[in-house]
């Protein structure tokens, strides 16, 4: 128990002192994961909705793959992105390896399937509920997608959050493609892994507590925004 109280004190100390190193890695963590969530949502919300609404050959296979990819191992994603971005890989000329951009790419690959699969289910359920209604109001399938995405927006926020949770918490992929370079690609999770490997369990645990707090702050901010919006629209 002593470890925990020590770590808690350490965490409080780091926060209250506005520790420069801490602010740097917290900022980068948020930048990388939020950008990844933003890009993944742009791809996955329409993709998930389209998979729910349009019938086409091989849809079952796509859905099965998507559901499988929800559980992609971060290390494998990291390796694949590494091989693609490596100087010896197909996109090596871009020189993106060991940059925040590489970390964003890896996280997009990790979370896009999660957001898409959850969105497909959300839209599917909503469509079952109000398909007749929308048809009666004269909606065509093209406008149906937009309407359903808008109508389910509150549930979709949760889907997007499932993606954010995965992105901010994973370490395997960003460690491989980012390299955990101090002042350049070090984020919360890779810093925690590093401190653990240095045997500084106390600092590692303190950073872990701060990471969870951070998730809590982001989640509550969005949840209250959602609540406020809900009040305005209904």
């Amino acid at each position: 128990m002593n470890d925990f109280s020590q770590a808690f004190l350490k965490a409080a100390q780091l926060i209250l002192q506005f520790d420069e190193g801490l602010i740097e890695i917290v900022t980068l963590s948020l930048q990388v994961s939020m950008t990844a969530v933003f890009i993944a949502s742009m791809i996955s919300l329409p993709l998930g909705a389209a998979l729910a609404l349009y019938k086409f050959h091989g849809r079952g296979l796509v859905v099965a793959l998507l559901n499988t990819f929800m559980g992609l191992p971060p290390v494998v994603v990291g390796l694949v992105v590494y091989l693609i971005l490596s100087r010896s890989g197909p996109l090596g000329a871009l020189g993106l390896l060991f940059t925040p951009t590489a970390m964003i790419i890896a996280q997009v690959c990790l979370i896009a399937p999660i957001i898409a699969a959850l969105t497909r289910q959300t839209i599917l359920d909503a469509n079952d509920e109000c398909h007749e209604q929308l048809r009666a109001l004269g909606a065509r399938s093209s406008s149906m997608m937009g309407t359903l995405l808008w109508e389910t927006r509150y549930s979709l926020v949760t889907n997007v959050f499932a993606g954010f949770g995965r992105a901010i918490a994973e370490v395997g992929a960003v460690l491989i493609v980012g390299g955990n370079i101090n002042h350049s690609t070090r984020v919360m999770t890779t810093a925690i892994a590093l401190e653990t490997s240095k045997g500084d369990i106390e600092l590692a645990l303190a950073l872990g507590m701060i990471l969870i707090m951070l998730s809590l702050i982001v989640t509550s901010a969005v949840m209250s925004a959602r609540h406020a919006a809900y009040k305005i629209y209904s």
Partner: protein
Amino acid sequence: MKYCLVKAIAVMVCMTLTPAPTLANSFITLVSTTSTENSGLLDYLIPKFRDRTGIDVRVVAVGTGRALKLGEMGDADMILVHHRASEENFISNGFGVERREIMYNDFVIAGPPEDPVNIRGEHETIRALTLIYEHKLPFVSRGDDSGTHKKERELWALTGVDVSQYSGNWYYETGAGMGATLNIANGMRAYVLTDRSTWLSFKNRNGLDLLFENDPPLHNQYSIILVNPERHPHIKFEEAELFANWLASSEGQQVIAEFTLNGQQLFFPNAQLQ
């Protein structure tokens, strides 16, 4: 409120996509072993080089095996590693040029403070390892193709014991970095071979004692190798060479010598001065 959120996200996206302005005009990428990075040596050394040249050095810390692979793929400008045979192989395969020995320290064997077979009393590494083998006491190996792992396998080879057949029995391969492996050895009350700098800078060692040291086979030489620019034309060869030259210069060597942790020197410079 909602637009605020959208705006905040948009700002975040822009901030990430525009390259952050760096203080230095340029940077080079050094792939190094975890020991040199975790001990704080590079954090001490690099700012001094940057002040002198304006070139920043970005460090990716991995095991020697992976460091060599990253160099081979052209993902680093230079590598700082510690396994001579692999280094010479790397150069003869045309992946690297200009290998230069920079500094050394040594390996030590740590283990449970009660030291059941009393390797403390031994003078030869081979004898100490043989005792551990004879009593089938837990020994934790890196098992990750790092310089330390290769060294450890070489030492076992000298004893004539084929440890791979005991893997999972009393010989445990963690497949992890030095720090993670020390954490495991601590938890298992096992013997472990570690480089001295990681040992001294490691904080979670209250269940481990330094039991065996000071034997010539435990010498640990670090060298820097530049990635072959003929294989990878994008390599920042000139800047990397500048760094290697500086490390091997009397100034760089002095900086290495003056780096201490809790009053103890961790690395001993031994470059041939040019």
